[in-house]
Each structure stands twice: as structure tokens, then as C-alpha cells.
């Protein structure tokens, strides 16, 4: 194909719109990792639940799309808190504080992933569900056609990231969350309710995953199996950006999104999922801690 500048712009825009979604999920993964020392393998399924909740609120309960998004975030955030309190906390306690002890947490994460997927299967079945959102006609920018949902996805993603940034940097609860992420024992000695903050972190991360699911639904429809690939891409984004780094997760998501779209456009259109992981390998070879990586801590 001859080089075409408007197509290049289109590929970058496609990359950005999917990249912000990867970034939001990666942000949740990084948040949980930095706060709880857990690599949460069930986060893809939390994202899938978020997409279905968004669909139910929007299509079945008739809420406007932004309200459906908010409702899905709140519901899944609460669900995340329940999962953390009921299942994960027992393991982290028995393993010694909130550090990973052995493989227990990893296996529990995989188990939770299977449980959530099967629950979703029982509720919604295996068929993909359309997620129709009528936002008006697509925007024509030169030769590029952009559905409004793409623009809305980018705007909402930026708003979410800004809100999270403000929450963490400008509020007392955000300060407490950061303190818990930095050192739980010292945070406890400073009078911070560590278990409560951990619930806040988990709830926030799950709410972000729900936002990502509700944003992706109108683009790709909603299906029980949608979590796996998103989890892989979000992990790639988190690692590229630097595991545990919140700005890194977002930048990593954008890079993965743009890189896979440009790879599919200019290298080979076949099996474009490869490019995300190719980028991951390249970054790890050059900078093992990721682009914005913090010092890698050895878990207990």
C-alpha cells in the first residue's frame, strides 16, 4: 500500500482509542500491585463483568451511557471490595501481612478468574451481546471516519485518569492510599486504617476495569471470554510502562495500542496481537524495569 498520511493519522487514532482502554485496565493492575503486592490475574474478568454491567444499565435499564458507565463503576467497585475482603484478605493475612507468600495469591487469582467467568456464563451465556450506543453520526476528519464513541472513549479515559491523579495527590484519602502503597507497616504506625485503604485501592482498580469494559463494549460487543486478551494486553502495557508505575501504565497502554495498529498497518496485517508482545520483549530487553519503572522489589 502506498504511504498515505491520513491513513497514518487514522491508525494512530485507532491506537490511541484502544490504547487508553489498555491503559485504564493496566492502571488498575498497577494500582493493585503497588498497593497490595498482588498480581491480580482475575482483572480481565472484572473488566468483563464491568462491560456486562454497563450493558445491563444502558440497554436493559435504559440509563444514559455516561450514567451507565458510572453505575457500572460503582457496582464493580463494590464487587471488588467484596472479593478482596472475602477471598484475598484471608490469604494475604495468613501469608504474613499484605505481601505475597508463595503461590497462594497467584493461584487464587487464577481461580477467581475461572469462577467469575463461569458465573458470567451462567448469567449471560456464551453468546456475544451487542452494546448499541447511539451518539450520533460519525465524525469525518479529512479522509478519516471516526465514530463518536471513539472520541468519547478518549475523553472519558482522560477524565478518569485526571480524577485518579487528583484523588491520589490532592486528597487525604489519596495520601493514605499512597502511604499504604509505600509501606504498610509505617502507614499503620502513622494511624492509617490499612485494611480500609486496601479495600479502597481494590475497589478503585475494579471500578477502573469496569469503566474500560463499558467503554470498549460499543466498539467490540460484550462477551464472557473478552477478559483474557484484554488482561494480556494490559499486562503488556503495565510492564512496558513499568510495573507498579501509574503514569507508566497509561503511557504503556497508549504505546501498546499505537504500536500494534502501526505494526498491523505497515509491517504485516496478520495476527496483530503479536505486536503488543513484541513491544513488551523489546522494552524488557532494553530496560527491564519498563519505561517508567520503579526499582523492582523482591516480594516476600
Amino acid at each position, binding site marked *: 500500500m502506498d504511504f498515505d498520511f491520513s491513513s497514518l493519522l487514522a491508525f494512530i487514532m485507532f491506537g490511541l482509542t484502544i490504547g487508553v482502554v489498555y491503559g485504564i485496565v493496566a492502571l488498575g493492575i498497577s494500582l493493585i500491585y503497588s498497593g497490595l503486592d498482588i498480581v491480580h490475574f482475575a482483572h480481565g474478568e472484572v473488566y468483563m463483568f464491568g462491560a456486562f454491567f454497563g450493558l445491563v444499565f444502558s440497554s436493559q435499564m435504559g440509563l444514559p451511557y455516561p450514567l451507565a458507565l458510572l453505575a457500572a463503576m460503582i457496582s464493580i467497585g463494590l464487587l471488588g471490595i467484596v472479593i478482596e475482603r472475602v477471598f484475598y484478605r484471608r490469604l494475604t493475612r495468613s501469608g504474613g501481612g499484605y505481601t505475597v507468600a508463595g503461590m497462594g495469591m497467584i493461584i487464587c487469582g487464577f481461580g477467581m478468574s475461572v469462577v467469575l467467568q463461569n458465573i458470567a456464563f451462567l448469567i449471560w451465556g456464551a453468546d456475544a*451481546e451487542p452494546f448499541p450506543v447511539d451518539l450520533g453520526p460519525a465524525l469525518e476528519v479529512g479522509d478519516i471516519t471516526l465514530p463518536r464513541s471513539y472520541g468519547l472513549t478518549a475523553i472519558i479515559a482522560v477524565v478518569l485518569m485526571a480524577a485518579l491523579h487528583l484523588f491520589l495527590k490532592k486528597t487525604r484519602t489519596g495520601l493514605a492510599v499512597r502511604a499504604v502503597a509505600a509501606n504498610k507497616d509505617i502507614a499503620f504506625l502513622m494511624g492509617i486504617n490499612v485494611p480500609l485503604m486496601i479495600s479502597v485501592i481494590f475497589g478503585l482498580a475494579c471500578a477502573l476495569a469496569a469503566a474500560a469494559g463499558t467503554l470498549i463494549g460499543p466498539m467490540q460487543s460484550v462477551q464472557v471470554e473478552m477478559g483474557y486478551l484484554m488482561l494480556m494486553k494490559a499486562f503488556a502495557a503495565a510492564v512496558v510502562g513499568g510495573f507498579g508505575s501509574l503514569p507508566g501504565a497509561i503511557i504503556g497502554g497508549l504505546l501498546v495500542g499505537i504500536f500494534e495498529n502501526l505494526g498491523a498497518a505497515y509491517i504485516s*496485517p496478520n495476527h496483530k496481537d503479536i505486536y503488543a508482545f513484541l513491544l513488551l520483549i523489546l522494552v524488557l530487553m532494553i530496560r527491564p524495569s519498563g519505561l517508567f519503572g520503579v526499582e523492582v522489589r523482591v516480594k516476600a
Partner: protein
Amino acid sequence: MKPHARRLIAGGIVAGVLGALASTALAADIRVGITMRMISENGQKYGQMVMDEIGMINEAGGINGNMIQATLLNDECKSDKGVANANKLIFQEKVHLLIGSTCSSVTLPIVDVTAKAEVPQIIPHSTNEKITKKGSAWVFRVPVSGRYYAGVNAKYVGENIGKRIAYICAADAASQNDCEAMQAQMNSQHGAEAVYVAQVQEKEVDFRTHMQKIKSAGVDGIMIAALAETMARALVQSYEAGIGEEVRRIGSSSASNSPVPAIAGDAAKGVFFAAAYAAADTRPIARLFNEMVRSRYGIHAPDHDFSQAYDLVRIVEIALNRASLSLEDGDLAADRTAIRDAIASVKGYRGLGSGEISFCADPTPQCRDGNRTAVLIAYSKGGEDYVTEVLARVTMPEDFGL
């Protein structure tokens, strides 16, 4: 002899007699194993329909007085599960006949299992042409082979749409075959090379880059060869990329499945595809079938997965009635051979399908691809209450595409 010893002996005799009776009853059943993709709502319903139809044969007196004992397993369209199901059905259940599978990628390895175990296998849905090209003497295909679909599609596209065609090909075996066969037919019939070809994952979700490139390339048509849900997403995203309806969308045979119009909505309108059954068929038998599926399973308009599953049960019924079966455990191999030969003797079966279904003894695609007639169908309305129209019906020569 002590009383408890007498009781033991008597108990043993009773148990022996009961065991013998049970084994006689078991031997008198015709055991049929079924493996299908039953993870979707449609899959569960046509699986249930097969079981219901077999149940009705039994209620009507069975096959020459023998009941059909059917075991239905779900392979989830995964080849490892399909092979495990086939092995379980053949070696544990000792079935006389195996039905399955839905997905070509599952059926392909099962063909090797049934060939080695010498068990007749009859296929309800899979279209990949390699299935019958393997040369197994034990395999029979009820659906239309991909080589016939490709021929019909290519003829229509070349004569009515144009020669600049882009292809999006999913990684599953049926879609790969549909894509390759269509490209080969476009080349051989019209001298047309593919303008753009993209290989995508079986469950790809983001087609926007491909659609932008296809839009830039300026094509007459886009062939999307993928399983139903993947195809629906690609259709929606093709319109989102700004590719107008003047560029025709060509579906692989899975475009017939109801999730395509249900998920794609308006984007399904105008999509055409070759299939083995049209819900718009006006024959009384088709009207009755549509009504039965609607009332019994709540399906708005049955696709060819339903019709082929139904036709398959009828063909099995015909063959089992013809086969001379002893149904003794020691005669399992002979009974399997008799069933295979009886299926091979089915000629000119006219049911719901697009054409007559005939088999013969040679283990060749010409003999074992039963239905050579494809019907070309287009969606005139998308959504849950989709509407189809028939564009053409074409019967291909038996050695076409070989």
C-alpha cells in the same frame, strides 16, 4: 449347606439373571454418540433438537424394534475436547455411530480417530474440504463442502459485484478453508488476485486498521470469513471505518448463524453468503420446520445448522432402518460396518437442505460430500428479527474444486 451360603448362591443367581437381562437390553440398543459445539444458545438448541428427534424415533417404536441410545457431549469447538469426546464415545460407550462435530477444526482430527477405530462418522455442520479429502472410508458429510460454497460465491461475485476483493480470514479451520477456496476460485474463474488479505485471530475484536486499509485500497467487496460473532464485529467496524454499502460484504458459511444479524444489526443488511438452507425457503417442509423450531426452541428463523442437524437425524434413521444389525457386543465391528454401508447407500435424500443428499461407497470427496447444492442468501434486514432473501441456488458438479 448353611442358610447364608444358600442365600449367597440364590443372590448370585438372581444377580446373574438380572445382569444377563440388563446386558441383553443394552445390546438391543443402538448406541449413537454425538459431539457438538454447545457453548452458544443456538448450539445448545440444535443439540437438544437432535436429542428430541432421536427421542421421537424411539417413541414411535425405534429402529426395527431397537431403541437408539444417544449420548450428547459438548466439545466447545475445541479440538482437544472433541477428540477426547470421540475417544470416550468410541472406546467407553462403544457407540455404533458417531455424529459430529460442528466446527471443522474439531471434526478434522476426529476423522482420524474414527478411521482408525473403524466407526462410521456423520458430520452435521463442518465445511472444511479437507475433511473428506483425507480419504477415510468411515466419514460422511451432510453439509455443503467449502469447495462448493467458494465456487458459488466466486461466480456470483465475479459476475455481479467485481473483481477487487479484500479478504479477512479468521484462524479457525472452516474460515481458513472458505477464504483460501474463495481466493482460488476468484483467480481461476475470473483471473482476480486478492487486493488485501488479513489473517486474524479466531476471536479478533479490533478490525479498524484492516478496514482503514481496505477503504484506502478501494475494493468492490470484502469477504469476511470468520465465526459468527467475529464476523458481526468486523461488519460493524467496516461501516464505522466509513466503507459504504456500495462495497458488498460477503460472508463465509457461518454468516448463516443468527448471532451475525443479531450482533451486527443494520451492518448485516446486504451481507450475502452461500449456505445449505434458507429460512426464506417457501417449500411446505421448510415452513413447517421453521414453525417447529420457532415454537419448540424459540428461534426466530432457523439457520442451516438447525436444518442440517435435522436432515442428519433423518438420514441416520433411514440408514439404521436399512442396516442389518445384530447389536450383540461381539458383533460391534460388524454392526459398525453395516451402518457405514447403509449410510453409503443413501441416495437422493430430499429434506430441508438446499439440494439432494447422496452418498456412495468410495472414500472420496465425490462420494462423501453429500450435498452439492448451495443457496445464495442475503440479509435484507439485520437485528434480532432479521430477514433473508434468496439470491440464487446452484448445484455444482461432484468433482468441482478438486
